[in-house]
């Protein structure tokens, strides 16, 4: 089913018919996916509703909570504030692409080891954001990690565990660099 625009609800007759869905090709976790999407479909909705990758979560849908964070060409973004059609040709990585239950990524393992969640809803966004932070290589101290994780909100308040988990992986990575 194609997402309907809000302005055709209620059967208004003077409005033109919405444009038909177009073919969009997205590269998600290394796999090319061909989809029929209306232009107003956000990357977040494309992932969840059309690619069946429901690990990425919809929280505020306005770029304020960070639960929809994914990586595009290795950089973290809010998938709710970009259109799927704008991301053609880019490498999209979601939480499903970072690791698998039998082979967790270092961040995923650290989140478990440090009990870095309670309800878990913000966790995929937290981990994708932390992966973006690692890729940037700008955060080293706890203060720097706090600042550069400020785009992700945890309403359960698991920040202490999240900070410890990210710090552990940041420290391990900087040892490798040394």
């Amino acid at each position, binding site marked *: 089913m194609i997402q309907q625009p809000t302005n055709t609800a209620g059967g208004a007759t003077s409005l033109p018919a919405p444009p038909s869905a177009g073919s969009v090709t997205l590269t998600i976790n290394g796999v090319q996916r061909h989809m029929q999407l*209306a232009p107003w479909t956000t990357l977040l909705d494309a992932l969840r509703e059309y690619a069946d990758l429901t690990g990425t979560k919809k929280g505020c849908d306005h770029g304020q909570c*960070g639960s929809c964070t994914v990586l595009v060409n290795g950089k973290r973004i809010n998938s709710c*504030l970009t259109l799927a059609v*704008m991301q053609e040709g880019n490498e999209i990585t979601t939480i499903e692409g970072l690791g698998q239950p039998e082979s967790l990524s270092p961040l995923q393992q650290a989140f478990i080891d440090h009990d870095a969640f309670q309800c878990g809803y913000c966790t995929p966004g937290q981990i994708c954001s932390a992966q973006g932070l690692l890729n940037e290589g700008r955060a080293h101290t706890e203060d720097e990690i706090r600042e550069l994780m400020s785009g992700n909100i945890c309403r359960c308040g698991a920040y202490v565990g999240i900070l410890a988990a990210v710090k552990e992986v940041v420290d391990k990575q900087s040892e490798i660099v040394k």
Partner: protein
Amino acid sequence: MNSFTYTSATAVDAAVREKSTNSKAAFVAGGTNLLDLMKENVERPTRLIGLNKLSDLATIENNPEGGLRLGALATNADTAWHPEVEKRYPLLSQTILAGASPQLRNMATNGGNLMQRTRCYYFYDLATPCNKREPGSGCSALNGFNRIHAILGASEHCIATYPSDMAVALAALEATVRVSGPQGERTIAFADFHRLPGDHPEIDNTLETGELITALDLPAQGFEKNFTYLKLRDRTSYAFAVVSVAVGLELEGNVIKEARIALGGVAHKPWRVVAVEETLRGATATEDNFREAATALLRDAQGYGSNNFKIELAKRAVVRALKQATEMNQPLDANAFLNSNP
């Protein structure tokens, strides 16, 4: 969102032509502000012209004036962490990093940053009158909740503030905006780019129909020795400024050769008063002189109830920012912005 069609632009002139012949079309780059406003039905374009494939506009390189040219489509993050920006324009780098979140800075572009619209709650709320959203409907902020609103340059029709951090530094640095339009290319001095609300609060800037920002030119003088961006906000990170101050100083010993002071969060555009900066030229860098300048900067300030506190706050922020820029005793690493708001 309302329905719209999407096209990905492959050339600047074609994008400009399409935009100038379709009043319901909008450019989209990062999309962080426009898509949000479209979800709220505040913006209702019927056609989006995507700019992301115009990679020529995403570069950062030296300009003929000995400064730096920032492509309009370079992201805020790539700009803030560009080695030349960090080295020659640390004020700009810090200012960008004081805004939004890492995710948003990875999406938002330099051109788009200038085009972002006010965060006035009434502008977002379709159930209340707003002259910026619907000209002639009235201003709900004037006698409403106006804690985040303007204290300088407002009009009876609109007291909204312009929310960008980056633009406050660009004002202090006297950047130039390069635009491409149906009549060709032209440049706009940064001070002339954003406008005061006056009788037409629905118009944020001086772009003509169809014009597209292609780059921002920074002059050679980057004030890299004495600068500061002081951002005061309701939480330490990821919040808009209540009041912010960008300062660039050129000092010879304790004597001020040149001073730039721009304020954010207080008006419909970054606020600068060149005459006040001129009074500091040749003066010694003392707290008394700073306080005098701050008083002069805020002389015409007017509160609207909930935001009265901003007048005194802005004065004190100016004094502190000038002191910080003189002493340069705040940490200067890439995350120095952390300490700008103890």
